[in-house]
């Protein structure tokens, strides 16, 4: 009844300030601040136990933060948790659908929990089943569904309340390539056709790279870095070019280093290793320079840095063997098993 909608001057759909969550002595999320713009796909990337799910659980009002501020869809998660729940959709990591019920009845159950009148929810459930391509299986029990079908059903359940903002926790965990591609397609449709904002967590780097407009890398509860996938890759040091020239030609490393885009040059035998900011643009300039000196390029290759490298550089290369929440691990294993059934 009391709608204390907070008017934000910017187009941010989520504003998080110094959010923290402590479990006993463990700081699961430590002083995290970030904004999410309306209409973007934002990805949280991080190893197991980094605080991704804890952050999502706080923003979807499942967990009470220890301290900090957060405004989601214009409502404070502290003062108006019910308004936040009405405005957002949540697709949890686990397969939460009731196996003894049919696909459509599961969606209708979710609609009932939102208080949606049956005549509206029935029609909308059909639209959603069509969106996730499950209309043929709508009246089958979920226990007969494959892992991919279950994941798509979870997505449909999360969309039942016409959310402006959708949270997806590890949406493709354990899925086969076909289903993963389909889930990516739905996510893009939601953004492009329905202009929804999506907040997803993942530890698959290629997923973050191909889907997200911006990525936040979180580790040990700290937000290590936020930026577009390109910015993150560039932060590692740019593109690497390997240029082969004919043998016994003089070393012109210092000349190549004069090119503006070039950040570093090394010559070994007849091979130049060049680091540059924008490889595609730097390459022709380098070739021109070498030729203008009367020398010959015999081979050239260009490697773009991957998100993997950026990720490993930011989170360290150590293997993770920390104790994570037992219940969470149980759920994750159950999710993986069911995804493969």
């Amino acid at each position: 009844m009391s709608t204390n909608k907070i008017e934000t001057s910017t187009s941010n759909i989520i504003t998080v300030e110094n959010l923290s969550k402590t479990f006993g002595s463990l700081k699961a999320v430590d002083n995290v601040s970030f904004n999410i713009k309306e209409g973007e796909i934002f990805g949280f990337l991080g190893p197991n136990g980094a605080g991704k799910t804890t952050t999502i659980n706080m923003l979807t009002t499942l967990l009470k933060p220890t301290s900090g501020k957060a405004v989601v869809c214009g409502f404070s998660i502290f003062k108006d948790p019910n308004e936040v729940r009405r405005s957002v959709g949540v697709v949890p990591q686990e397969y939460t659908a009731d196996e003894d019920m049919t696909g459509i009845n599961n969606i209708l159950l979710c609609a009932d929990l939102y208080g949606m009148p049956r005549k509206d929810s029935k029609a909308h459930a059909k639209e959603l089943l069509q969106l996730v391509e499950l209309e043929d299986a709508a009246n089958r029990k979920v226990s007969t569904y494959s892992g991919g079908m279950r994941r798509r059903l979870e997505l449909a359940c999360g969309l039942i309340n016409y959310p402006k903002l959708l949270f997806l926790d590890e949406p493709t965990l354990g899925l086969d390539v076909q289903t993963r591609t389909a889930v990516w397609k739905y996510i893009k449709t939601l953004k492009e056709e329905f202009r929804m904002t999506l907040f997803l967590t993942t530890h698959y780097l290629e997923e973050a790279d191909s889907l997200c407009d911006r990525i936040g890398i979180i580790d040990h509860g700290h937000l290590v870095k936020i930026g577009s996938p390109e910015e993150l890759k560039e932060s590692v040091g740019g593109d690497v070019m390997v240029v082969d020239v004919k043998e016994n030609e003089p070393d012109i490393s210092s000349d190549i280093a004069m090119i503006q885009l070039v950040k570093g040059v090394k010559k070994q035998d007849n091979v130049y290793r060049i680091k540059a900011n924008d490889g595609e643009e730097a390459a022709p300039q380098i070739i021109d320079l070498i030729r203008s000196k009367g020398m010959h390029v015999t081979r050239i290759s260009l490697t773009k840095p991957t998100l993997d490298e950026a990720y490993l550089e930011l989170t360290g290369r150590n293997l993770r063997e920390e104790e994570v929440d037992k219940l969470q691990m149980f759920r994750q294993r159950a999710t993986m098993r069911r995804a493969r059934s």
Partner: protein
Amino acid sequence: MDETSTDTKIATSKDLENQTKTAEQTLAEEEQRFRAAPKLSRSPFHGLWALTNRDLRKWYTNPIQLFVSLIQPIIWLGLFGKALNFGSFIAGSGASVAQQDIILKNFFGTTSYFSFLSCGMLAFIVLFTSAFSGMSVVFDRRFGFLNKALSTPVARGSIVMAKILNSVGRSLIQAAIVLVIAVALGMDTSHFTILGIAGAFLIIFLMAVGLSALFTVLALRSADWQTQMAIINLLNLPLLFASNALFPVKIMPAWLQDVVKVNPVSYAVDGIRQVLIGAIGMNSLWLDFAVVIGFAVILSAIGIVLSWRLLSK
């Protein structure tokens, strides 16, 4: 110079028009694909029936579960109840039939031990059905359904109330079946009245509410079904044996009689016996009703209050 700048201006405004058009078109397409969002109910009870029916459905669509849950009371009634023939103890004592009846009435409040036990069995089935009411909370937490429900605007209290109502519904139906079986096996029906049967089921309803609330609250924080099973076993048998469900209070040692008197199950059984078979009660019927009502109200209030605190960390 001026001309070109106006040209560009026109071009931009046209571009803008085009842009707004495409935005409108997309909006139209969106509306075509999805219907307009309806208004959501703000009633505090929305979703309560949906959650209750989700659990009840598992039971009424699975007759095997219903059948298995009835086997235990049938065995108790058919084997235990028939074998423990207190009447024959005294029949060999040489006392006259009238004297035997006085002795039996003194202990059991009625002349038929089987009828005495049948009323206890009605409480037994309610106790054992309610004890498992918390189990589905444990599984809902474990498999994530609980989190999903908590992420919707459904009232936290409704999540707990649905579990309670589910086991109340089961208890009522199972108690009705047990009563029919008991009558078929020879329970005394001479005191049956419509008001009496209604009163008995009101007591069963209230006891089911109280006991289900108790066991649901105990399960609220648990994600571990073994612990929950241990809790059920820890409470179930003492609640049954330290009550008047199986044996009369009068034959118990004094210390046990004191325990029986604080066990709410005893009041429920005592009330059921008075309204159903006209037995001489341990307490007045009003006291029985008052205790059972208080038990149901207090425990369900505790359940709803704790649901706000315990369901989310």
